[in-house]
């Protein structure tokens, strides 16, 4: 059972390590799908820039969080 649980965790972890970031990426893809169907190929440029921007945003946020000194408990 623990092996199966580890396998499931591993499979989910392949795609999502931060649920908020995963949700944002899926929202961008859904918005991109809508935009491409209405505006055509030019919408792809905005789609790519949004994906790149979220990468910078979430990496920076986690980097800052990890480098912040831990408060004594």
């Amino acid at each position: 059972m623990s092996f199966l649980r580890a396998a499931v965790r591993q499979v989910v972890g392949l795609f999502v390590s931060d649920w908020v970031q995963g949700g944002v990426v899926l929202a961008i893809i859904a918005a991109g799908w809508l935009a491409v169907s209405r505006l055509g190929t030019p919408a792809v440029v905005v789609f790519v820039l949004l994906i790149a921007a979220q990468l910078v945003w979430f990496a920076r946020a986690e980097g800052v969080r990890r480098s912040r000194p831990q408060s004594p408990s």
Partner: protein
Amino acid sequence: MGQQVLIFGAAFLGSAVEATEALTIVLAVGLTRGWRAPLLGTVAAIVALAALVILFGQLIVTRIPDSALKLLVGTLLLLFGLNWLHKAVLRSAGAVAMRDETRAYQQTISQLQETESRTDWVGFVLALKGVFLEGLEVVFIVIGVGGTGHGLATAVAGGLVAAVVVAAAGFFVRRPLARVPENTLKYGVGVILTSLGTFWAAEGMGATWPGDFLSILVLVAVYYGASRLAVELIRRPAVA
């Protein structure tokens, strides 16, 4: 031709990284408890993984319509690639420790020494679990990279060649492959997988890329640039 080279390269590099991690576990078990059980565990894991590739590879290629397949695989590849790239950025910026195969090897050995009195079943399960779980990532990379764009055979070849090369290196060296630039490889493969995922997801949405497959090079440049920007922003000291 260029598309096939990219598919082979991405499958090879991604698989090589995961095969190196699996090899560390198998070596730690084999060198401390003997080779029979870990080799059997490795073979069992490879058979299970091969069945997954054949089953899901054929299923998705033959049953799912082309545009839906591109959107699905592109989305998964995008999530997968961004996951690797996110971790690679944090490692490059020094916010997360680099993966160290020598340390992973020592941890596995101390884990084994705690269970010294048990039977060789432990060695079998540890090798099976390590190879299967790391191999799941190889399976996804192979299917994700090759499942659309008619490149499954090329991607499978890339994955197999990587596994053979890493296994051969492990056989001759008989210790963890600490010199493999694993973190750099993960960074590079993360950028490539994110770019491939974007390319296929957008094609699945109905977009047409200018320059077709060549636009992947532009995507690689955009995502590499964004990742370097993230590294610089993390390294830059916060203004008080």
